[in-house]
């Protein structure tokens, strides 16, 4: 347990400085608005995103932090493919309000209605909101703090009591071009966290229709 606390403390240490909001609230508000505006502008030109990702799981129940690898495809406004190929094979596709999911190499694809898959609905909703840089929607669910401006790092603290029970905060690190999120960290209440790094992301590369 001590080890766990140490890990968490060490991990959280670098963020503690970011948590302090600027002294001048007006200044901060204008900077925040400016950051949001920059991201909105960059996001407005994004039609597709594609690339690979790695997912690190820093969990108490795991001896080490396993890294999974996968592929990511997004097409505006509401198509998403999230595919893990290592260490296991699984993934899901969202196309509008419908979707498919699979597990295992030979796992059959199961169609689903997005409304019936709350977890995928939340994940895809987040992806779509960030891809559109829809800050109105995002701020309705989270208290957003700008931790860094270059590169842009945002911290999102959930407003919902239910979500707070499980989720401490989410950290987003934007690419230098600010048109996509390059790293996501999901920090849970107990100290566990998941880090997703997006690698070799291509913006507006044409995507085959059949991948969604």
């Amino acid at each position: 347990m001590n080890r766990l606390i140490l890990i968490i403390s060490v991990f959280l240490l670098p963020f503690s400085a970011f948590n302090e909001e600027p002294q001048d609230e007006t200044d901060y508000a204008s900077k925040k608005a400016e950051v949001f505006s920059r991201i909105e502008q960059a996001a407005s030109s994004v039609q597709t995103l594609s690339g690979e990702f790695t997912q690190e799981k820093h969990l108490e129940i795991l001896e080490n932090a396993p890294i999974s690898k996968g592929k990511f495809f997004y097409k505006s406004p509401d198509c998403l493919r999230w595919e893990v190929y290592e260490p296991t094979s699984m993934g899901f596709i969202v196309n509008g309000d419908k979707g498919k999911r699979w597990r295992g190499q030979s796992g059959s694809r199961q169609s689903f209605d997005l409304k019936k898959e709350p977890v995928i609905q939340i994940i895809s909703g987040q992806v779509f909101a960030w891809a559109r840089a829809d800050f109105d929607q995002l701020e309705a669910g989270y208290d957003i703090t700008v931790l860094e401006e270059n590169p842009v790092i945002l911290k999102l603290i959930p407003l919902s009591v239910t979500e707070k029970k499980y989720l401490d905060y989410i950290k987003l690190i934007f690419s230098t071009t600010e048109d996509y999120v390059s790293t996501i960290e999901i920090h849970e209440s107990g100290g566990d966290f998941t880090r997703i790094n997006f690698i070799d992301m291509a913006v507006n590369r044409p995507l085959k229709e059949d991948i969604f």
Partner: protein
Amino acid sequence: MSWFNIFRHLYNYFSGRRPALFLVAAAIIILSVVFLKYIRLSEDIKSMLPDNQKEFSIDFELLQHAPFTRKIIINLKDNSNGDFTELAEMADRLANAMTPPLFTRVITGPTINQDMDIYNWLIRNLPNLATDNDLEEIKAGLTTEHIRDQLTDDYDSLFSPEGWFLKDFIKTDPLNLKTFGLKKLTHLNIIPNVRLQDNHFINADGKNVLLIAETDVGITDADGAEKMLSQLNALAEGIVPQHVEMSVLSSYNYTVANAETIKKDLFVVLSISSLSIIILFIFFLRTWKALLVLLISFSSFAIALVSVSLIYKTVSAITIGFGSVLLGLSDDLSLHVYFALRPGKPKDRKHDISAIMAEVSRPVLFGGVITLCAFSLLMFSALPGQRQLGAFSIIGVLASLAMSLILLPHMMQVSSGGKDSHGFILKKQHPAHPSIIIGIWILLLTYCAWQGRHITFSGNLNALNFVSTELHGMETMIKETWGDFRGHAMIFSEGEDLESALAANDALFRYLKQNAGDGGIISIASIVPSIKTQQANQNAWNEFWSDKEANIRRILEEEGKALGFSVTAFDPFFSNLKASPSPILPEDLNVSGIKDILDSMIIYSDEKISILTLVPDTAEIRALIVRDKDSFPGVRFVSQSYFSEMIRKAIGHDFIRFITGAFFLILILLAVLFRDIKKVLLSLIPVVTGMVFMFGVMSLFNMPFNIFNIISTILIIGLGVDYGIFMVCKSSEDYEHDTDTAVLLSGLTTITGFGALIFARHPALHSIGITVLLGIGAAIPSAMFVIPAFYKIKNNANGEKSGTNMPQGKEG
């Protein structure tokens, strides 16, 4: 004939005392009319349930405990492409607006909003809930291979979108034992198609949300129900927008619909029958003196109704609806007297009123007595509503008889004089082709008898409820959207206290699972067994794990380590294994979102506690319970279909008793009257024709025979025999009082009385109308044409035999 001289003497007696006679009659009639407004009307269908067997009333009371009987189901359907959040917020606003005193509680979802609580609760309480069968299944999954597979699955799931959510379950339940608990929850799912989203009941497509409201308004309280439903509609007007469709389904909708329909029907039926009778009288009688006959009809109705209200606490709306029938019925007797004494009769005929009364009293009295006897059979019915109808009809016919034979002659005498119209009188004709008439009659009778063999009996009381198209549409829509959650059969496990009731419920649940399978059983036994059962489960659980724990720990550590799990990853699981959870009590489940289900499944009464189990309403399950009922003391099966079946049997039994009794009585009375077997048989022609025709046509159009058709049958028998007596008297004896016209007019007035019931929207009233219309509709022509046709043939044969021409219409 001498016995009937009593009416000659009565006439003579009152001739000198007319003012006193009129005064007494007027007082009775006026008092009856005044008291009419104090009559308490009841639309309660319970009056049509047999009360001679305690089983019926017990079952009827138990049926009221069905989980949704006293609840108001409100469905909000979004017809636009709006999102669920908007619909859910609307449901919450409506629920908040529905406040006491009319609404005591409204729920839009379970009382808690985290499914996690249920999962954790299940994992913690598995020792209390796991049965021997569950332990057998768990044991089968404790091999190294199975555990490895499960851990691999657990590990892989950490990388899935739900990984963050599943992590805690992997710690506390690496072997995925919660599936055994989840299976138990399926037995609590009363509404098949419901799912939960944001703590709201929603359907599969997410376009419908469900609100369940409770009220203190009594189910049969039509005024209260109307007020409550109006209030709900008023609230919805301000909250529910145009693109959202609100549907409300509850027992209260039926109460209001039935009460409104019956009230409207009574107005329509009584208006139409009164008006049509007046029109018929004007056409046939063409004199204001016809009002005297009408006065007798309406007075009989008022006297009968007031008398019944003095005997019974409330008067069934069906009885009042039957008043229109009585109007048509009671004028039969007075019309015969009227035609015998009618104004404008040829002066050359003997016009001694006292002598005519002695003569006419014979068929009138016999007709009346036979009708009375037929109705008196209703007094032996097991249905209180039918007994009330019997009393109503007997009093009505008695009043009509008394006024027709005693009052009417004096009223006509007083009003005589002046220029009176002869009115419409049928010419005295004899059938030209009697053989053809009889041939057609036999053919029709044979065809109807052939058709009538398929007649079916229905005991479904719901079919006698008025269900509007709108209400039927709502029923269908809610059934399609949420599944059939209102049509279950119910099994009650009773006990003196909660523990004994739960123990009986446990035994029943085990039996049902063994013999009928898991499907469709809604029971709290899977989640709240008796304390005794829970203790036995816990002992078995502890014993089960005591010799397995070390081995399972070793396998989990080894296999877990190979996958990357930490050594302490599954400590919470082993802690749970060692924990001895307290027995589950119904009140503990209040915090776990199942409170509402428990509240509707545990019924507390003064003397006992009953636990409700819902099962599919099938003959197989009913047979199972009946077969082994001795093994389950305190267990009682109740279902709508079984209840209907019992009613159906009671109806069938009543019907056979009535028919047999009525025919027996009538045969005796006819034998006493005519003392001639041929006349007796001829008198029965209208009643037999009416009955066979009614059965044939009902069968042809697949109309089942219900409670109200029995009443109709009694009427057909009573009236049909009247027509038979009048026509046989007319055709065979020296009896010339315009009987054809009297039979035709009284038949037509009866038909208009019944015909008016066809305009009733209430199935019960409509049912009486349509069947009796068929019966009387066939009885009249058979009386008017078939009986004279037989006499014509007989007279012709006699004429040929004797070589002389006998006078027509007279018997030697």
